[in-house]
């Protein structure tokens, strides 16, 4: 624990005259935690970077790079089965699942943002928040595939509703909402209701109080909720397995391919490389926008 304590020195610590040895001794916990953090990031990124290199190698499954080729990208875009001599036609087998996954991810993100904004600020202040929170976190406590079966049994066999995109969307929301709610609660549970009281005293309408005070202050939480919603939906597999009727999302597609007697190398290596590059760019922009703005807004409101 003393290791951690070191970092608080950054806050308001007055400059002192220290010998070099003292300085190193003082700073090592901070450097230690930084080192550990980036070391784990290295463990995360080594396979991803190596995968990108292997995606242009001819023998990716052996783990050795070299003999550069673009055939996996070719196979991914045009399918692996076309016969020699035939004109290539874009085989859209990957694109339809990708589009469906993106669509579901956006819908899930929107639902998560709205739902957690509705529930998050009030939940910490109601009487039965413990049991209610437990109820909301319920989907986290059952293995995904079983939750999928239970919901399927309830809606299909109990209520006789046919599965479709609606149920797929519901499944993704059920999976993502607990995470989104927790992310929102981290922010909203320290929301100061006196701000609202003050605004009410100054004659602000409920809508203005909601829009001008709650929403800006809870923005990091709303953003986090949407982000978790999007990410969790984009990679969701177990809940989708039963809550769909013929619809194929990207994870479902990869899952089906993995059961086949042919190689899913083009999909895993080439597709993942493209998704990595796209997500690095998009995430960097999104984070720049979100975090840059957050600090300003909160500060402004606080000091106002």
């Amino acid at each position, binding site marked *: 624990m003393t290791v*951690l*304590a070191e*970092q608080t020195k*950054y*806050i308001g610590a007055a400059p002192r005259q220290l010998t070099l040895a003292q300085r190193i001794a003082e700073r090592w916990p901070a450097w230690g*935690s930084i080192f550990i*953090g980036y070391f*784990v990031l290295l463990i995360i990124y080594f*396979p*991803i970077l*190596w*995968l990108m290199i292997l995606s242009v190698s001819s023998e990716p499954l052996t*783990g050795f790079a070299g003999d550069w080729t673009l055939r996996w990208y070719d196979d991914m875009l045009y399918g692996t089965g076309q016969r020699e001599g035939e004109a290539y036609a874009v085989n859209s087998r990957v694109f339809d699942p990708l589009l469906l996954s993106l669509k579901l991810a956006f819908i899930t993100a929107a639902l998560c943002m709205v739902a957690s904004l*509705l*529930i998050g*600020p*009030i*939940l*910490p202040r109601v009487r039965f928040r*413990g049991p209610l929170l437990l*109820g909301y976190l*319920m989907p*986290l406590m*059952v*293995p*995904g*595939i079983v*939750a999928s*079966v*239970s919901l399927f*049994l*309830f*809606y299909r066999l*109990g209520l006789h509703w046919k599965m479709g995109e609606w149920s797929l969307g*519901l499944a993704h929301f*059920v999976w993502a909402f607990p*995470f989104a709610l927790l*992310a929102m609660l*981290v*922010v909203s549970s*320290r929301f*100061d209701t006196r701000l609202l009281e003050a605004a009410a005293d100054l004659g602000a309408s409920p809508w203005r*109080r*909601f829009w001008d005070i709650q929403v800006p202050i809870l923005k*990091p939480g709303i953003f*986090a909720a949407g*982000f978790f919603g999007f*990410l969790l939906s984009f*990679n969701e597999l*177990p809940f989708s397995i039963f809550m769909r009727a013929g619809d194929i999302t*990207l994870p479902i597609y*990869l899952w089906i391919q993995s059961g086949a007697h042919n190689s899913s190398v083009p999909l*895993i290596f080439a597709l993942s490389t493209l*998704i*990595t590059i796209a*997500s690095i760019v998009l*995430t960097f922009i999104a*984070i*720049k926008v979100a*975090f840059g703005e957050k600090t300003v807004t909160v500060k402004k409101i606080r000091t106002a």
Partner: protein
Amino acid sequence: MALAEHAAGMNLRQFLPRMSAGIWSLSGFTFLWFIGIVVPLIGILLFSFLQTKGIKVQWDLTIKAYEKLFFYGGGPLIGRTIRIAATMTVIELLFAFPFALWLAKGAKNQNLKLITFTLLTVPFFLSPVARVIVWRSVMSVQGLVNTALLDIGIVSEPVEWLIFSEFAVHLGYLGQYFPAMVWPIFLSIALIDDEYLEASKDLGASRFRTLVHVILPLSLPGIVAGIIFSFVPMLGDTVVPQQMGGGNVMMISHNVYTMIGAANFVMAAALSAIILAIMLAFQVVLWAALRPVGGINNVFASLHR
């Protein structure tokens, strides 16, 4: 005192319109959620006491599913799963907390922070299979690591336990769930007002005391969220145990899947009911562990000023 209560009453009345809208949406949503989600999920408990023939359900209550579950080796499987998931949750927490603390309060370089945030987010976008499949070849007997070790002369025989072993499963989990632990902790620490920390220092508290008595309690929601974000998905992870363990270190998720693949819904429900019980026990332990700081219910409330 009377005046204060009167003022509170005034406020309450003024607040009524907004509150009722809030309560309205909360109770509506809660109703939907409990009827539409919680009831079906609890239904698996009932289901685990039934028997099926094909996909037809026989409505006689029985504990056959549980007997079979333990006959078919469910005990050691559950034990192994919890052991590995719990170990890795603790390790993730020990690694992630200092890093999140530095990221939230220590790191000054905006660009470095942005890049780190991006690096912590991108892994979420990638299919879990893509993130671990490379380890399989890198760690294999003829892979990069073994080749390097043999060349340097550290070992004379290829090291076999680098892959298809418990070590490999732990390694796979480390990278997979680190961001899920860092994010919520970071978020909760970032929201702590610097004034608190300065006040603590002004009052003469050592850095250690500030950490334990100010930062730690205020970041509890993040820590709890982080534990849930990593422990729970680890229990249900199908990819890491299968790809890194190579069938030598199986965990429950794969078993649940094969049971359902073989139309054995009842045993899958029984195994899930046990997991549900474990999760509830986990909540109790968490609650007990948090008692010194007011119990889990007060974790969120404790942040009020």
